[in-house]
C-alpha cells in the first residue's frame, strides 16, 4: 500500500481500489475538527459569504466562520474587505448584527473607532478623560487584523492563514475550466437565497455533492431525463472534483418561457452542466442559463449551515416577466438540495459506528469523492509535518 506518511487514523491509500475513507474522528471528533479548521479551512481559500450580502457602501455583516469572528465590509468606495471582528483594545466583538455603517466602526465597549479600511481612527479618553492619545498607544500599529479576501462568482473567499497562493493561482484550474462562465452574475435574493441548518460535518456535504452515484436513488426525479450514464466525473486532484451532465434541461415557465443564456457559451453548454465542489467548502453549479453557489459554514464537528445563492446572467430587476420562473426555479432547487439532507445527516450518525473503517470506495463511481478525501488527508499530513518541524 502506497500510504501517505500520516498516522493510521488518517491513512488514505494512493489507490482508490484499496483506499478507505477518512476515519470517524474526522467527522465527530472535537480535536480533529480543530485541526481540520486550520489545515483544511483556514490555510486554504474558503467561502464565507456572498458579496450580495453587503450590496451597499457601508454595509457590514458579522460572520462566525468555524468559530472565528469575522467582519465583512463594503467600504465607502464599494470595495469588499474582511477583518477579524475583534477590537484591538480589549478584544470586544465590534459588530454584532448586520448593519449599514455611515461613518466609522465604533467598538461598543470603550468606543475606539476604526475606518472601514481597518485603520484605527480614534481612541477616546485613552490618555485620561478628554485626552485622546497616549504615547504608548500608536494607532498606526493597531489597525484591525485584515484577512486576505477575494470575490469570485459572487462568493467572498478568505485565506485566514494569509499564506495560501494568490486566489487566481489557487483557482487557476477551475477558472480555466469555466472560463466561458466568467460573466457577471446577478442574485435576485428573496427565495433564491436560502439556507439549511444541517446536522452533519461539513465534509459530508462536499462528499455527497461531488459524486453522481447517488442521483438515481436520492433524486429519482432525474431518472426520466438525466440518467446516471449521462453523467461524468470531474476530477482535478488537489483542487476540486464533481460531476457533469450531458443532458441538462432548462426549466420552462407555463408559457414555455426560459431564462436567457450566459453570453458567448460554446455548444457544449447547450446540454452540458457541471457541479463542482471547489475545495474546501464551496459547491458550485455552472449551467447555460443560471448558476448557484453553496457555502458550507461549519458550526462544529456535527453541524453545518449550508447557504445557497442562485445567480442569473441578467439583472432580475430588468426582467419582471421572469419573476415567476425565478420563483419556480428557486423552489425546484430548494427541493432537490433538501433531498440530500437526510443522507448527509445519516452519514454523520453513521460515523458514530465504532466499527466503521472510513468506508470502502466504489472505484468506478467514487473517484471525485475519493479525491476530496485525498486532498484532506494530504493537507492534514502537511500540517502534521510542519508542526513536527517547528
Amino acid at each position, binding site marked *: 500500500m502506497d500510504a501517505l506518511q500520516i498516522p493510521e487514523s488518517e491513512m488514505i491509500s494512493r489507490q482508490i481500489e484499496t483506499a478507505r475513507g477518512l476515519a470517524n474522528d474526522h467527522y465527530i471528533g472535537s480535536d480533529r475538527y480543530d485541526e481540520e479548521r486550520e489545515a483544511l479551512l483556514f490555510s486554504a481559500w474558503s467561502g464565507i459569504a456572498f458579496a450580495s450580502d453587503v450590496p451597499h457602501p457601508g454595509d457590514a455583516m458579522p460572520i462566525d466562520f468555524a468559530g472565528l469572528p469575522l467582519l465583512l465590509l463594503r467600504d465607502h468606495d464599494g470595495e469588499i474587505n474582511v477583518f477579524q471582528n475583534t477590537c484591538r483594545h480589549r478584544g470586544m466583538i465590534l459588530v454584532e448584527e448586520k448593519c449599514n455603517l*455611515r461613518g*466609522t466602526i465604533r467598538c461598543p465597549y470603550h468606543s475606539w473607532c476604526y475606518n472601514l479600511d481597518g485603520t484605527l481612527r*480614534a481612541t*477616546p479618553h485613552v490618555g485620561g*478623560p*478628554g485626552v*485622546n*492619545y497616549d504615547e504608548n498607544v500608536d494607532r498606526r500599529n493597531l489597525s484591525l487584523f485584515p484577512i486576505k479576501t477575494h470575490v469570485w462568482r459572487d462568493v467572498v473567499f478568505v485565506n485566514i492563514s494569509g499564506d495560501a497562493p494568490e486566489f487566481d493561482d489557487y483557482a487557476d484550474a477551475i477558472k480555466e475550466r469555466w472560463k466561458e462562465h466568467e460573466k457577471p452574475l446577478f442574485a435576485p435574493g428573496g427565495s433564491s437565497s436560502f439556507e439549511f441548518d444541517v446536522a452533519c460535518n461539513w465534509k459530508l456535504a462536499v462528499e455527497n455533492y461531488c459524486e453522481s452515484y447517488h442521483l438515481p436513488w436520492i433524486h429519482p426525479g432525474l431518472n426520466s431525463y438525466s440518467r446516471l450514464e449521462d453523467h461524468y466525473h470531474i476530477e482535478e486532484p488537489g483542487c476540486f472534483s464533481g460531476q457533469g451532465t450531458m443532458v441538462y434541461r432548462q426549466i420552462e415557465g407555463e408559457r414555455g418561457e426560459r431564462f436567457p443564456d450566459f453570453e458567448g457559451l460554446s455548444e457544449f453548454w447547450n446540454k452540458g452542466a457541471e457541479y463542482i465542489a471547489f475545495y474546501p467548502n464551496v459547491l458550485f453549479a455552472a449551467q447555460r442559463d443560471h448558476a448557484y453557489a453553496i457555502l458550507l459554514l461549519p458550526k462544529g464537528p456535527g453541524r453545518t449551515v449550508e447557504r445557497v445563492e442562485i445567480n442569473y446572467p441578467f439583472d432580475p430587476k430588468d426582467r419582471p416577466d421572469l419573476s415567476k420562473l425565478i420563483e419556480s426555479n428557486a423552489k425546484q432547487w430548494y427541493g432537490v438540495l433538501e433531498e440530500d439532507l437526510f443522507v448527509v445527516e445519516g452519514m454523520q450518525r453513521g460515523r458514530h459506528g465504532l466499527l466503521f473503517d472510513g468506508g470502502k470506495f466504489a472505484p468506478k463511481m467514487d473517484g471525485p469523492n475519493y479525491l476530496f478525501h485525498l486532498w484532506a488527508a494530504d493537507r492534514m499530513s502537511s500540517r502534521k509535518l510542519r508542526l513536527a518541524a517547528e
Partner: protein
Amino acid sequence: MNLDGINAAILAAHSAGDGVSLAGLYRRAGDEFVAAGSIDEGCFFLTQAYVYSLEYGLDSAASIRSVLVAHGRER
C-alpha cells in the same frame, strides 16, 4: 454650569440609540464648558461628540477634532 436639562436629553438619546442626537448634545455641552473656560470638562464632552460624529459620518467630526487638537487633546 447646569447640565440637568441636557443630561436628561443625553440619557434619552443613549436609551434610544440615537447617535446623531448624541453627537449634537455632547457638542453643545462641550462647547458650553469650553466657552466657560472649563477646558477639561469641555474636552471630555467634545470627545464624546467626536466619537458619535465619526460613527455616523457627520461633518461635525472635523470641526470637533480641530477644537480637540487646539487644546492638545487629539493628534
